[in-house]
């Protein structure tokens, strides 16, 4: 009896989950908390489409999941170098992005870039930089160079935190040392390792979680971080922090909306991309997310300006992370493993 009930219940569940693949659905797999909830609600109201949202915290999570054959997602949000990898690996659907209304809203400087030369696969939705933030209650010195962070003075001993994975951190060290991104030269990468090893005694933690509290509350005095997050913690929580503008440059990223291969609701996904890119909605998104927008905004309503959010308007050069060859990636992993061995 109970067994029968259980079987029936499972059958019913299976039937339900199959129905969930049908028309009128849109399944997003995007950076955690990256799209304004009110836009999701609005899209559902306007189109009658039921939207579900899953979040991830690193490009690697997304790539790994798609490679492992995750199905059921209609829209993903990879950064530029992962757009490139996913296109090359055949993981994205050709949606002829240049023909979408959204494409007309994209700032021409973001069109036809190396990660999607023909604009077939992706529409950018947000961009920004990775650098470091200092807590001004703890550290009063200048923040015009990566040397403050990578070769810290006594004042910052034991008060520095980095991310728990190498992607942007190694990029920043490369900018500081003048080593090209994705270097396949072991000598150059050895220099990166030496720099990080020498910094390690001053490092309190290598962790990517809970950064707001750690730097805002003064648990550490300097933290590797992103522009928009730093800005929001300063503006919304009143934290006395400053996002550095190191003269050697910042590590750039740009996230795009793209459709994974085999998605069930491609038309809904395209409709959502167009929806996100109208000036009105893009501005709502900008005000929520706090990262720069590659599509045109309604400047009368846009909350962040160079005056109140200097974090978003870098005054130094920005170098975008590349899709590294396996040889170069191995060197990055080697640096990181030896650093933390």
């Amino acid at each position, binding site marked *: 009896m109970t067994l029968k009930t259980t079987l029936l219940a499972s059958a019913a569940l299976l039937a339900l989950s199959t129905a969930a693949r049908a028309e009128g659905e849109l399944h997003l797999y995007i950076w955690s908390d990256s799209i304004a909830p009110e836009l999701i609600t609005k899209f559902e109201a306007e189109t009658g489409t039921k939207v579900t949202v899953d979040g991830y915290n*690193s490009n*690697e*999570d997304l*790539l*790994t999941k798609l*490679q492992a054959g995750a199905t059921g997602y209609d829209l993903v949000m990879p950064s530029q170098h992962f757009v490139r*990898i996913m296109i*090359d*690996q055949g993981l994205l659907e050709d949606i002829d992005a240049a023909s979408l209304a959204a494409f007309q809203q994209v700032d021409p400087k973001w069109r036809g870039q190396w990660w999607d030369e023909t604009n077939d696969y992706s529409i950018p939705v947000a961009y920004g930089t990775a650098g470091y933030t200092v807590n001004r209650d703890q550290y009063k010195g200048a923040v015009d160079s990566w040397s403050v962070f990578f070769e810290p003075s006594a004042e910052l001993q034991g008060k520095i*935190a980095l991310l*728990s*994975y*190498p*992607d942007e951190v190694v990029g920043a060290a490369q900018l500081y040392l003048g080593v090209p991104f994705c270097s396949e030269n*072991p*000598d150059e990468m*050895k220099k990166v390792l030496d720099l990080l090893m020498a910094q*390690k005694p001053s*490092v*309190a*933690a*290598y*962790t990517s*979680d*809970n950064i707001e*509290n750690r730097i805002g*509350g*003064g*648990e550490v005095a300097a933290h590797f971080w992103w522009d928009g997050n730093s800005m929001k913690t300063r503006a919304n929580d009143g934290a006395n922090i400053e996002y550095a503008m190191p003269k050697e440059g910042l590590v750039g990223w740009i996230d795009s909306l793209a459709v994974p291969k085999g998605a069930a609701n491609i038309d809904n996904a395209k409709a959502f991309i167009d929806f996100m890119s109208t000036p009105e909605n893009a501005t709502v998104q900008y005000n929520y997310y706090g990262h720069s927008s590659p599509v045109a905004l309604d400047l009368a309503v846009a909350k962040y300006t160079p005056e109140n959010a200097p974090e978003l308007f870098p005054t130094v050069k920005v170098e975008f992370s590349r*899709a590294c*060859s*396996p040889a170069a*990636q*191995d060197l*990055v*992993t*080697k640096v*990181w*493993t*030896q650093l*933390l*061995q």
Partner: protein
Amino acid sequence: MRADFRIWGLLPAWVIMGFTLIIPIGIVIAVSFAARGAYGGFDWALSGEPYVQILYQVGWTDELEFNPQYLYIIARTLWLAAITTLICMAVSLPVAYYIARQPRAVKAALVYLVTLPFWVSMIVRVYAWLMILGNDGVIEKALVATGLTSGIDSLLFNDGAMLVGMVYSYLPLMILPVFASVEKLDGALIEASHDLYANRWVTLRRVILPLAWPGLMAGAILVFVPCLGAVLEPILLGGGKQLLMGNLIQTQFGGGRNWPFGAAIAVVLMGLVMIVLMARALRDGGRHDAA
């Protein structure tokens, strides 16, 4: 007839075990012998390279050299798991003994309290320690309030903080089996021990400890095994300054884009767990034979 039922009656269990445990483990083992894909993933090809990589690496000057770094990581993981297990054993015995000596209603309430943390997500429980140990945290505030000090450095991001988190997370897994064996302990045996002029220490060592031993061993396995795969506490409380096997595997599947190597380390980790379990099973088997 009955023997038949014993086999096919367990069919659902076999199916679930097969699909959710045996087959996935088989896949992990297969991947550990595969060739890595350029951008993560893997290609089917027989290769022992991931296992070679655990011991040897291509050095900065391009020659194959012995590289003990992964052995250090494995040793560190075993060490941390062992220390955590020992502390849990030392703490759980008096706690379990105390609970077992309470009246029935109090006992039930105390056991319930021990299991209570399991209802809360592991991440939330570890975050709670951030608030206790951190800057301006519970401990610092308490010390300042008593006037003992005007403020202390953060207690976070060191091995001690990590160990506190690990012991806290896994202690209930130790207390429950120890409690189960201590509860059955016959008070008359302790009285007898005293009657025979054993002092408290001798009674503990010769009577209580041997009788609690099966519980301590069961708890040791329950604590030691998950400790080997710990990821959260080392990063959030320990500061992630040194890799453990769990983080190492995560790195290889993620940013490292080397699934076969990650799978190979996972297989080694699994092998270690199996050695522990088999050693225990063999010892038990031996004891039963002797008896």
